[in-house]
Structures are given as structure tokens and as C-alpha cells.
């Protein structure tokens, strides 16, 4: 009966797909929110595209978005073997920061941070980016020296941050334990005020919707099973939904990059490891910032729903199983309980794992490969969520022009031959 009141034009998907705003909210409220158009189409794959992006995680979708937006390439498709954002993008603890030690990584992550700062507006999609600050704790004198050095390096690069004492940490986070007699006493921390968290699913969906608007085809349930090449150049892929031709292919498959490289006939310096996270039952607001400790492999924040979001370290063995071992979780929870004794009786709700692609120098590999027209973006390991917009932005440049952007040039695969590694292990640690 009420349907008679539906404003004209609601059946028109083009109008429904228009901007999200207070007006579209009101307009759709009138029809009980039953007529929102899908945020992106689900087209059948075409036989040929100008470019293909393999992997529909945040990085792949961001690449497609910037390819269309910045480089005018809209006859492209994203091929995802499962559902978009179902890989590490939808499994991570969503920490965003840019306080990396070396110039190369600092510049790349800071580019990403700047894109984060305008992302919800740019995408017209609320990615819930919340700059609530990030603390990186130090537990011994060497940690503190490294923290001093990193904060100084950050400031020289124009990246915000300062070193804080245990008392300052305690003032900001009253529940934290700064007892100097415990196993891993907190001696201080670095603090990046512009760091924070974002909603991971929204990042995937926002980029997907943004790319779709430019005409990019997002094709889910489409696994790439072979990479076709002729005379050293790519010509297309075989997929579970048929063969698709393209002369440019960007591969952004995180934990599966070695599998894809093998299809293309070259080797990668990557090992895939399980990395786990868990969330508690929702509780009242208690942690308003992000606290990370590389030394004890624990990091914690609280989501807007109230769940404590806790990240663990990687399992030492290679694994593609999207689950890790229990001792790793036990280790992390022990660290969290020492840091926050007040949380000892909180119950955990869910636990899961992702497959992270770790590189020998803990830095990504972005750029050209031995096969012409084939580009890889991988190796983000435990810490690539924060880089999602920046990674897509530089990789789009690389795919469109065939040449790396200045920001990703140092991250070429051939750095393992030339020896120009960018060692972020000390500064970024295993957890990101």
C-alpha cells in the first residue's frame, strides 16, 4: 500500500546508484530501504579487456579504481576467485599508520596515509577511517633506541610522531599495566597521532563501487588457473569462467603470489604464512586508541561495535590453510593479559587466519616481472592493509604506463638481485 508513495525514478537503477547522501537515505527510507541498488554490477566476463587485475582484495580493487579514475582505463576487469575482500582484506586488524623507518617505505606509506585522509569523500563511501592514534611499545633498551631512531627518521620525512614515557602512556590509557617488574615491562612507546583504524570490508566495497561506476567489471567466483603468454609477453588468462584476453595483467593475490608466479614461469622470494586474529564479545568502550607490541606479538584496538580486536604473530611454518595454530594465539593472549590485566576475564568470540605473503626484507614487491605486460604487487605480508589506497595508486600507474612510479620503483623484484633490500624488520617488526 505504501508503495504507492514511492517517489518516481526509484526503479531507475542509474538514479539509485547515484551519490550516497542524506537525500538518498531519506528517499530510500520511504520505501523501507528495499530498493537500494546493488553497489556494483555482477557482469559476465567479456572475451577481452585492455587490462585485467587478478585478485579482488583491497589492493586489486584500489588498483582498478585508480586505473579508471587517474588513467582513464575503464575497459578492465577484476577477477576474484572467491568474493571480494574475502582474503586478507577482510581478515586483518585494520591498523593504519605510516611511521616506517626507511625513506622508501616512509614515502610509500605516507602517500597512502594522505589518500586515507580523503578516501571516504573521494569514494562517496564511509570507510570509517578513524585517526585515533597508534602506540608502538618498547620493552627493553634496544627497543627504545630503535623507537627514538624511527621517530627521528619519521620527523625528517615530515611524518608525525613522538616518543612517550610509560607515565604518558598510562595517562592516555589508564587500564594499561606499566609495572616495571613484569616479564615485558613497558619502557615507552612511539605515538603517531594520525594513525588509526578503518573498516576493512568498507574499503573493499567502497573501491569496488567506485571502480564499477567507471565501468570496471568486477567478476567474482572466477579463479585464474593459467597465464597465457607468447614471445615473452602476456596474452591473457585461463579462468574457471573461461579464457579472457588482455595485454596487461596486474596480479595482486597476496598469499597466492608464488602460485601465480609459478604459472607464469618465474620464482618469488615470498613465503606464505598463516596470520591469526581474534575478537572478543562486545564490551563497553575501554580502549580508544591502537596499541601494538612487536616484541610480544600482540596488538589491540576496540571496534565501534565494542569488540576488542586482537592480532597475533605469524606461525613459523608456511601455510595456505587460512588458519594457524593454537600456541600462537595463547602466546598473544598471554601478552595482552600482561599488558591489560583488566581484560583477563573477557571472552573471545571469533578467531580466524589469513595467508600473508612475507618477503625477506618485510617490504612489498611492486612492479614489472620477467614477462612483458605482467605486473605483480605482493609481499605486503602482515602489514598491507594500511597501504591499500597508496598501493593501488602506484600500481595503477605501473600497469597503465608499463613503468614504475617513483614511489614504487625501489620495491622492484630485482632488488633481490641488486642487493638493494629495504630492511624494515627492525622498525616495523613482524606485526604491523
Amino acid at each position, binding site marked *: 500500500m505504501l508503495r504507492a508513495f514511492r517517489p518516481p525514478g526509484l526503479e531507475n537503477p542509474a538514479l539509485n546508484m547515484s551519490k550516497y547522501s542524506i537525500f538518498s537515505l531519506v528517499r530510500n527510507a520511504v520505501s523501507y530501504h528495499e530498493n537500494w541498488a546493488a553497489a556494483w554490477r555482477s557482469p559476465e566476463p567479456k572475451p577481452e579487456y585492455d587490462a585485467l587485475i587478478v585478485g579482488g582484495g583491497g589492493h586489486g580493487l584500489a588498483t582498478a579504481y585508480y586505473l579508471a579514475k587517474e588513467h582513464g582505463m575503464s575497459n578492465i576487469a577484476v577477477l576474484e576467485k572467491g568474493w571480494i575482500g574475502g582474503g586478507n582484506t577482510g581478515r586483518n586488524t585494520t591498523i593504519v599508520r605510516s611511521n616506517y623507518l626507511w625513506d622508501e617505505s616512509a614515502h610509500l606509506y605516507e602517500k597512502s596515509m594522505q589518500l586515507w585522509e580523503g578516501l571516504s569523500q573521494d569514494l562517496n563511501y564511509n570507510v570509517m577511517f578513524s585517526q585515533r592514534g597508534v602506540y608502538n611499545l618498547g620493552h627493553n633498551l634496544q627497543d627504545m633506541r630503535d623507537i627514538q631512531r624511527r621517530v627521528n627518521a619519521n620527523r625528517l620525512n615530515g611524518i608525525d610522531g613522538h616518543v612517550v614515557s610509560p607515565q604518558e602512556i598510562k595517562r592516555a590509557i589508564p587500564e594499561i599495566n606499566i609495572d616495571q617488574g613484569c616479564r615485558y615491562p613497558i619502557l615507552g612507546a612511539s605515538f603517531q597521532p594520525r594513525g588509526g583504524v578503518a573498516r576493512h570490508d568498507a574499503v573493499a566495497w567502497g573501491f569496488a563501487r567506485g571502480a564499477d561506476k567507471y565501468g570496471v567489471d568486477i567478476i567474482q567466483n572466477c579463479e585464474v588457473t593459467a597465464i597465457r603468454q607468447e614471445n615473452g609477453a602476456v596474452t591473457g588468462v585461463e579462468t574457471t569462467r573461461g579464457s579472457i584476453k588482455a595485454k596487461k595483467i596486474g596480479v595482486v593475490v597476496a598469499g*597466492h603470489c*608464488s*602460485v601465480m608466479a*609459478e604459472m607464469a614461469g618465474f*620464482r*618469488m*622470494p*615470498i*613465503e*606464505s604464512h598463516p596470520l591469526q586474529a581474534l575478537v572478543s564479545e562486545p564490551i563497553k568502550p575501554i580502549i580508544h586508541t591502537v596499541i601494538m607490541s612487536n616484541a610480544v606479538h600482540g596488538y589491540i584496538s576496540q571496534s565501534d561495535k565494542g569488540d576488542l580486536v586482537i592480532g597475533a604473530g605469524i606461525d*613459523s*611454518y*608456511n*601455510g*595456505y*590453510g587460512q588458519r594457524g*595454530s*593454537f*600456541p600462537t594465539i595463547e602466546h598473544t593472549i598471554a601478552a595482552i593479559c600482561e599488558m591489560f590485566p583488566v581484560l583477563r576475564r573477557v571472552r573471545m568470540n571469533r578467531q580466524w587466519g589469513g595467508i600473508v605473503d612475507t618477503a*625477506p626484507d618485510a617490504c612489498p614487491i611492486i612492479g614489472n616481472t620477467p614477462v612483458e605486460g605482467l605486473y605483480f604487487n605482493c609481499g605486503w605480508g602482515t602489514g598491507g592493509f594500511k597501504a591499500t589506497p597508496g598501493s593501488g595508486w602506484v600500481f595503477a600507474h605501473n600497469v597503465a604506463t608499463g613503468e614504475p612510479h617513483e614511489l614504487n620503483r625501489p620495491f622492484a623484484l630485482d632488488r*633481490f*638481485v*641488486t*642487493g638493494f633490500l629495504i630492511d624494515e624488520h627492525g622498525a616495523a617488526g613482524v606485526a604491523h
Partner: protein
Amino acid sequence: MLLIECPWCGVRDETEFACAGEAHIARPLETEKLSDEEWADYLFMRKNPKGRHYEQWLHAAGCRRYFNAVRDTVTYRISATYKIGEQPPGEGEK
């Protein structure tokens, strides 16, 4: 928790062991003649297969000796362990 069979000590909990990466990577001979590409391949490039993997483990909180294992990287099931220097069991075995 994985149960891992050390070829010297027997079955123990995963927490006693440390995984030490891909097995059967032979250090190249005549290293002074290696090209940068060959060095990179030896030092950094890894098989990282999805499925059957030959890898080294250290019984860190036990006999402190290295040994090799065949493990599936999807199911994590260990189908065999054997001493360093022994031939790995073939594809079809175990």
C-alpha cells in the same frame, strides 16, 4: 597443535620445535663464480608451494637437532619426517 615426530626423540608437541624453512637447498659450489642472479636464487627465492612441502625443523626444546619433514601446506598434515642427509620420500609415498 601439531604433533611432530622427531626422528631421534619421537612424537612431541609443536611448541618444542622451530620451523626452519625449505629443505634441500644446497649451498652452491664455487661461489666466487656465481652471478648475482644465481646468488639471489640461492639466498632469497623459495618454492612456497600450495600442497606438499619439504622443510627443515629444529627440535629446539629437545635434542636441538635439525631434521626434515614432508608437510602439506593446506591441511598442515605431516606425512613423514627423516634425518638430514637421508633421501626424501618420493611423491607417491606415505
